[in-house]
């Protein structure tokens, strides 16, 4: 069976998020506005106010309450939606941990922005990095169409009986949040059809008024160890599940994203660039241009960051002569960018090749075509045995 053609129009990233979240029919929404996410909160509130979605909107005084509401509603059996960014994300940090530990399948859009420390109202992935060990599944998307499609897939993933984990879908604030782009919005009946298998699976436990049930409250000694082990194991299972859901989505809607990672011209590539988010889109153009100039380069777009796609990355990168990772965030305490540091943990399986770390695109500074071009050239030189810098802050060298 195939989905029918959806409505195609030019839409802003944040409007896509709200529109598609509504198509997934959440029962409870608690969403506090914050730049660059505000249109998500505004738009989805409008959809409910107009009577187009039967959902409970809980108006909260901040993000901490928003996540508490979503977790509680989720434990009561509701499908929930929220969205945040940066300060909002860290303001709900304790409840993010609890939502994961309680295994509440909350879906949240995180519109990436730099975090507190330096008051940067600008794009960057530091907020995503600051919650990487929270026990959430973290997915990063590249463009507005991928926002629409991945958001639908997020519900399939979060609420899957084998997974039961919250999912954070990340997209670049400013770059995608305010970008107007052509997007095909799937029809309601097709979103319903794609989410329908969730109804056939075993029922997860829910809070029942009056009944003496409890969730997440019994983490003493071996109870803690057991709950953590099950959570850890579910994270591991999520990797394959992401691939399976992506395949099923592609078969139905006609758009595939590669699951955990997207490989772009990697088959015959001698060197590889690893990037994520909107920068991966720019990187594809650079790859095309450099290939036309005779450099056999490919791109690995990191879509799944938590759990880290160990097996898929090894498969894609094994045998390449040099690899560069472009990070849009900082790892305080390691020399390399966060994603590069993680990739280096796979070095023994990938091979003893140069792995170059690049920091770029902080605080709304563009990851430009010349920047990525430079990365490709330096990676190609490193592959030929020439000396290279293992860490480069691109904006500081411009």
């Amino acid at each position, binding site marked *: 069976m195939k989905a029918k053609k959806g409505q195609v129009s030019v839409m802003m990233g944040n409007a896509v998020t709200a529109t598609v979240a509504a198509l997934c029919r959440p029962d409870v929404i608690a969403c506090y506005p914050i730049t660059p996410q505000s249109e998500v909160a505004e738009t989805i509130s409008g959809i409910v106010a107009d009577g187009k979605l039967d959902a409970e909107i809980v108006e909260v005084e901040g993000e901490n309450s928003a996540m508490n509401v979503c977790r509680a509603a989720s434990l009561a059996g509701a499908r929930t939606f929220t969205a945040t960014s940066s300060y909002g994300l860290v303001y709900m940090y304790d409840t993010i941990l609890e939502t994961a530990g309680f*295994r509440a399948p909350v879906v949240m859009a995180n519109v990436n922005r730099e975090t507190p420390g330096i008051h940067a109202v600008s794009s960057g992935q530091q907020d995503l990095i600051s919650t990487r060990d929270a026990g959430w599944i973290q997915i990063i998307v590249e463009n507005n169409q991928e926002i629409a499609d991945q958001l639908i897939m997020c519900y399939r993933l979060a609420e899957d009986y084998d997974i039961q984990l919250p999912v954070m879908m990340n997209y670049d604030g400013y770059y995608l949040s305010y970008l107007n782009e052509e997007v095909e919005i799937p029809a309601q009946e097709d979103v319903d059809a794609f989410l329908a298998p969730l109804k056939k699976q075993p029922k997860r*436990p829910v809070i029942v008024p009056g009944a*003496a049930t*409890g*969730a997440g409250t*019994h983490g003493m000694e*071996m109870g803690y160890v*057991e709950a953590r082990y*099950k959570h850890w194991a579910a994270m591991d299972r999520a990797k394959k599940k992401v691939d399976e859901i992506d395949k099923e989505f592609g078969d139905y809607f006609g758009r595939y994203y590669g699951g955990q990672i997207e490989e772009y011209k990697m088959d015959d590539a001698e060197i590889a660039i690893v990037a994520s988010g909107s920068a991966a889109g720019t990187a594809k153009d650079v790859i095309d241009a450099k290939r036309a100039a005779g450099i056999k380069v490919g791109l690995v777009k990191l879509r799944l960051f938590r759990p880290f796609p160990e097996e898929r990355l090894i498969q894609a990168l094994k045998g390449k002569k040099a690899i560069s990772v472009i990070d849009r965030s900082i790892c305080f305490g390691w020399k390399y960018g966060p994603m590069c540091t993680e990739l280096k943990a796979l070095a023994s399986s990938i091979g003893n090749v140069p792995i170059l770390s690049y920091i770029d695109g902080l605080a709304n500074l563009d990851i430009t075509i010349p920047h990525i071009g430079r990365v490709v050239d330096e990676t190609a030189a490193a592959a030929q045995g020439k000396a290279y810098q293992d860490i480069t802050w691109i904006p500081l060298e411009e």
Partner: protein
Amino acid sequence: MVIKHKWIFKTEAPWSDANEKMLALDTGGWRTERPVLDKDLCNYCGLCALYCPPQCMRDKGDHYEVDLKWCKGCGICAHECPRKALTMKPEGDFANES
């Protein structure tokens, strides 16, 4: 990895019946002192049972008796008893009891 642990939770998420699993924390094991009742002083007012945090004072009809399986030995019952009928005694005094 060979798991020898016997699963505590029936569910994937740490859910349980609060009447069972919460009490299964075996809070009695935390105790260093226990309340001992002087029945002659007790007038069955019930304040000890009202204040008991883990609610482990059992109604015996003419007095309340502590359930040592759950009593944490906090001493609130003894503190609140207006007739000083409850006294906290060190667990060491009962070391030879089963």
